[in-house]
């Protein structure tokens, strides 16, 4: 028995009081009914190892924008479903690698912007081992939202991933595309102009049919002899 048994109790109490979690913020900012309705979604998301912080942030965003509780719950539920699908798409491309919360969120957002899940998977396979995908996937969604055709955008992103183009140069692309779009360039031409201005080689255009160059075809199964 320690000589001062109160001291460990005091330390534990102070630690508990000092730990201000996102849950506390949610409880303070949301009305009780909305908070209670969100709990099952958050608990399931936690069990599924989804990006919990992003899901909780969506609820706080709804509160900040003064949205009704029912709409907040619906948006959070939809986001959880999007994240679940995005994680599956990335896991298919990267079965052995740990996938970060940011990558899952970026993939879900790209899908919401019009990028099919299978394109996410294909692009992710092009990344160099260990290279982060959050920025490239967000960029893919940004290009598609600017009316660049999905295959064109995917081809460019895959090419940059395979070439190891620095992300500090990648993030400049959307604004440079905007500049070209403002002067009337069509989306594909605007993307080409943006790449050239950043010194990024423009990949060859994808063929009209079949898989675009740079996107590796699946390895056929070879039966053992």
């Amino acid at each position: 028995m320690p000589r001062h048994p109160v001291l460990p109790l005091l330390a534990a109490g102070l630690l508990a009081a000092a730990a201000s979690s996102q849950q506390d913020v949610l409880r303070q900012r949301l009305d009780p009914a909305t908070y209670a309705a969100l709990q099952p979604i958050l608990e399931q998301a936690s069990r599924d190892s989804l990006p919990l912080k992003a899901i909780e942030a969506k609820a706080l965003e709804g509160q900040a924008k003064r949205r009704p509780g029912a709409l907040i719950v619906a948006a959070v539920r939809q986001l959880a479903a999007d994240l679940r699908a995005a994680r599956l798409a990335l896991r298919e491309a990267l079965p052995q690698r740990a996938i970060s919360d940011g990558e899952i969120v970026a993939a879900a957002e790209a899908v919401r912007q019009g990028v099919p899940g299978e394109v996410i998977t294909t692009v992710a396979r092009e990344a160099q081992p260990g290279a982060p995908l959050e920025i490239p996937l967000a960029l893919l969604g940004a290009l598609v939202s600017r009316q660049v055709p999905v295959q064109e955008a995917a081809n460019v992103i895959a090419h940059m991933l395979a070439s190891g183009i620095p992300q500090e140069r990648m993030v400049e692309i959307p604004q440079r595309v905007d500049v070209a779009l403002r002067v009337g360039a069509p989306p594909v031409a605007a993307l080409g102009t943006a790449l050239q201005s950043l010194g990024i080689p423009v990949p060859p255009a994808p063929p009209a049919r079949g898989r675009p160059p740079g996107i590796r075809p699946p390895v056929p199964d070879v039966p053992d002899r």
Partner: protein
Amino acid sequence: MTREPEDLTRYLDGELERDQLAPELAAKAEAFERLFQVLREEKVEASPRLREAVMTRVRAAAASPWRRSWTWIATPRPVRISPLTGALALAAAMALLLIARPQPSAEPPVAPAAAASGSKARFVFIAPGAKSVAVTGDFVNWSPEGIPMEDRQGTGVWVAEVELPPGVHHYVFIVNGSEMVTDPNATRVDDGFGQQNSVLLVPPRGSS
């Protein structure tokens, strides 16, 4: 102390009778008794000057209220409580601390300290007629008040610089404390509430 004065003291305290005293002490005792008789019969008043002199010295020696309070607080005193009482008091203090935690501060929120691999983002919004502009987003838990922006030149160009960790960040501008608008110069995404958010990409530092 000699024996004789002690016997006199005991007599004066009422512990000895006069006939128990030695003759020389008995004489002194009688002198004391005559003095006491005078004091009992005559009303003796100190002169006002004596009284005032004494009180002046008493007041000068008295400690101020602050000093008396400090002396009381700083004086060690033994306190005895049982372990059960102490544990209950501690639990009550912890409960009060948890319940009485302050509400979300009205002070401008602070973005999380960027990791060494993040960078400083510069938000710019042009609103010449606005009285205030702030920026809010996932980096400040979507604070309804946001981070205040400044129009230092008074030209309607509102600016804020925020340290952000690397990654993808969603944000909006808050104009005049209530109207949320997207950044016209940034990628926009559906926010899931029928509106849009602006998107900012922050690369890892040293990713070149």
